[in-house]
């Protein structure tokens, strides 16, 4: 459908205004909100992800595409809520306690959003208690934790312990990442997954949720 193609192109080119306009036009023409997500937005972001993987896109192009998708979602979300629908999967993400670095986490959050997930970004320096509260209150399927310092990595384990103690560990998949974090460390602390880069994180989330 031509209007959906406009939205696809607008997201691919990172043009938020055009994405907004194309969404408005599509909805006015009778397109179903979920159809726009599934047929235009997610495929566009998949292509953006592919171009990024192929080193044809840098992060700015990726984030601009995510911003364009967000501008379209501003129109679509209220319609989904009104019809009792919601995004299929929800992810809580944050940089762990004691760590103020958030660029990597922001990139992952943006890519996950672009991948069609609802992302709740808790920010940086997030305590185990805040992660637990977010899991209880927002009911996500996935929790992503980031750390850039070797001395804040242990907060990942503390957070996992807190989720366990609160009795909510089994209801979420927990992913970890950040410069000093390794696959081995992820295994040692009992995380469900590790990705060494942002684009890998999206694939990892999809695989984990598909297997769940």
């Amino acid at each position, binding site marked *: 459908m031509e209007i959906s193609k406009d939205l696809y192109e607008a997201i691919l080119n990172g043009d938020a205004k055009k994405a907004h306009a194309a969404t408005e036009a599509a909805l006015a023409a009778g397109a179903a909100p979920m159809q726009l997500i599934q047929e235009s937005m997610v495929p566009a972001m998949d292509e953006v992800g592919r171009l990024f993987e192929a*080193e*044809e*896109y*840098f*992060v*700015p*192009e990726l*984030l*601009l595409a995510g*911003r364009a998708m967000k501008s379209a979602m501003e129109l679509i979300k209220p319609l989904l809520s009104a019809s009792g629908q919601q995004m299929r999967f929800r992810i809580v993400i944050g940089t762990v306690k*004691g*760590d*103020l670095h*958030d*660029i990597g986490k*922001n*990139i992952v959050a943006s890519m996950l959003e672009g991948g069609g997930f609802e992302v709740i970004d808790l*920010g940086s*320096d997030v305590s185990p208690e805040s992660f637990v509260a977010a899991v209880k209150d927002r009911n996500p399927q996935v929790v992503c934790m980031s750390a850039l*310092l*070797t*001395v804040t*990595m*242990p*907060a990942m384990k*503390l957070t996992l312990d807190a989720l366990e103690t609160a009795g909510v560990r089994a209801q979420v998949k927990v992913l970890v990442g950040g410069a*000093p974090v390794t696959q081995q*460390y992820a295994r040692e602390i009992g995380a469900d997954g590790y990705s060494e*880069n*942002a684009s890998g994180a999206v694939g990892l989330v999809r695989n984990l949720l598909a297997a769940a």
Partner: protein
Amino acid sequence: MSMTTPVTRSFAAPAISHLDQLRFGISPRPLTCGLGLIIGAGTVFPEVNFTLPPLTIDDATWIDVKAHYEEMAQHILRRATALAVPGIVLEFELLPAMTERPEWGAEITAILKRHLTAVHQKHQLPCALRVTPTDIRDQHKPPLLRTGEPWLRLRRSLELCAEAGADILSIESIGGKEVHDQALMFGDFPGIAFALGILAPRDMAWLWSEIVSICVAHPSVVAGADSACGFANTAMQLAHQKMLPEVLAAVVRAMSAVRSLVAFAQGAVGPSKDCAYEGPIIKAITGCPISMEGKSASCAHFSPVGNIASAMCDLWSNESVQNVRLLSGNAPEAFTELLAYDCRLMNAASAHGGALALRDWMTASDEWLSPQAAVLSPAATLRIAGAIVSEETPYRQTIAAGRAALDIVKEGVAAQKLHLSRKEHQWLDRIASALDELPAEEASLIATLEEQYGGLYDKASYGL
């Protein structure tokens, strides 16, 4: 002995104007500090930087934390004396928890100074301790830079570390980063220019007047310098990961020199921070000695400037290494050896009249393999330094530095020395257009970007 006075200096002309004067080991304004150390007077010294392995820092582990620092200092100085280094600087970069609780940072400072004093007394080793508290002022959104508990703790940390034995105070300040992070990630050049040319210099001027005043109150402490680590090194690392264009990282590096220069305008005397790859530009303009890091800092991060980074250094650093076991020994000791041999080679070259040749080989080996290296050559350094001093305000200086860096990269491409991918070429053109479109006056840029970035920063923190 402190040479620091709280004066505001301006730099109408570079302290170094001739290429042959811009080389490792020599600075027009050598610095005496610590225990008999003179930096920039002909000899390159290792600056060893070290940190903890994965370890939670709290009351329960504090005894283990101290034991690590005792061990690291002992091992580093053992290797330094075994290799007969002519002098050494230890850098203690506080971890956030150690700045949050200033007494902790001071306690580690005292431990390290005790080790340095002992080795100085026993072996007459010239040495100094650089202490770098964490800039923890970004805890609130937007960050409050001049008021509030984080600033008070940071200031207290600086004071206590000065009292506890620091010889050089430094910081990697974050003023402007709240805007720069977002602008960089979106490749938004006006936002980058705003952060680097307007916000960061304003915070630097305020923060460094404070740091210099602390050093004046502690006469044995030198006001070292700052680093654009949170700005240009972020760009460098993201470029390394193919997340940002290298040409953008190269231009950001040159532009970031202006905000780092502000520390010297406020009375800092160096040595500049090791991770401040903009250091050569600072050295060319101020004549103050600089610390640099490159190939021997791969324990901390990768870079495309491993050799060229040492071409103009006065201290040569490893950036940061964890206290973990290697086959040879613990990593801080192993990296002390690496640095010691790097410095030996540079100092032997100087002793045999080969310093310029070695400088040029180190330059040539990297220069045209990356745009980020291209803007770090001695010739590029002088050109960017000249562009900066040709303008009067930090904003205009920042734009001038960006233009100079862009021209250097473009000329390298045109001469077919520097080869860029198609995507990098596109970004080169994009940056050129963005630079051309920047308004001449900073007030105009501030107004233009108010809607986009106004919510990210606290105006009072920047005197706006």
